[in-house]
């Protein structure tokens, strides 16, 4: 399951579900490679999110994180996360 992690202008770290940025989970999975190779897309998402938020909660950093479940003999055995892409405001 992918999700986003953001840092606001006031330094608060946020965990954001995909829907909070207007995308369904499967849509993020479908465009995962684009996010991986074009972090600027995260910047555009952050700007869109910021348009409806107050100045202090404006995102200055946004990461796309993918959860990975490991299976053994068809049963879940462990969970890890991969940071797919990171955008930081310059």
């Amino acid at each position, binding site marked *: *399951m992918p999700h986003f992690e953001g840092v606001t202008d006031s330094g608060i770290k946020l965990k954001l579900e995909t*829907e909070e940025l*207007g*995308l*369904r*989970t*499967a*849509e*993020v*999975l*479908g*465009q995962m490679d684009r996010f991986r190779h074009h972090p600027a*897309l995260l910047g*555009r*998402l952050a*700007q*869109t999110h910021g348009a409806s938020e107050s100045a202090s909660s404006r995102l200055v950093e946004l990461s796309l994180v993918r959860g990975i*479940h490991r*299976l053994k*003999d*068809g*049963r*879940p055995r462990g969970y890890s996360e991969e940071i797919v892409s990171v955008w930081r405001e310059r």
Partner: protein
Amino acid sequence: MAREVGRFEPVLQTSGAMLQRAAAGLGRWWHPGLPHNRAVVFRRIIYAFVIVDVLLTSFAVGWHGELPGELYQPLLIGRILPLPVPTPLLLSGIKTALGAFSALALVRKRPRLAGIAVFALYLEWMIVNFSYGKVDHDRFALLVALAVLPTVSPDAGHDEDTDEAAGWALRCVQVAVVLTYFMAAYAKLRFGGIAWLNGSTLVRAILRRGTVVADPLIAYPVLLIGAQYLIVAFELASPLMLMKGRLGRILWWTAIAFHAGVYATLRLSFIPHLVCLLAFLPLERLRRAGPSPEIGADMRKPQQLRSTEPHAPVP
């Protein structure tokens, strides 16, 4: 030489006659004489559903207008047609127009024109829905229904008749329903190969969106693999739903049980597809049981309500 030709003539004539009979049989199958009222009730359900769908079940499409245009990755049809990148204004306009035209079609005010408008608008609604990295298959039959319903006669005077045109429209929806299942099996085998059957697709689905019913099943991978075999078997067998009699009914009820199971375990509703499954039912009975016919409806004798459809519909 002449004798050689003569020898083959009866064979050719027989083959030609067989082809003619097959074509005629196929024509009858595609144009079954069904009660016009069945299509009328189905049409009402479909247009009422579109209003509900746009407001409730596909509301997330509206989110896309707020997204950066770079994330819009139009489907092939969206690349061929000069369709604009979605904006909040565009999607609000489509939503409003869909509601208005669906309401007009629902109350039979210029139903053909309104129906064509609903189809065009809903097609664009779905192009937007599926142009951000995810394509669902649960709305295929609904789109087909919206495409064919404007061909059904709007004349209320025919409501009590049997009608091959209405039969054709309903048959198209039935075929689309079946293709939704059959092509889902094809997609699984096309992309996952035969190994899909023994894979961990259901485990992944449960980890992602499992319910309290499904979560305990994670401990039984063999059971989930068995379920994957059953799903593909059902999808491959789905064309039997088009057959007359008991076999068709069994497949129809299997589909209902399948969707109930999927909803209980994964919260996937397939509502647009379920609405189209109603095309297999004798919906005209709802109308006969209703309070009164529409104004202008031609009241005929009961025996004229009988369907000429060779196989009994699902009761």
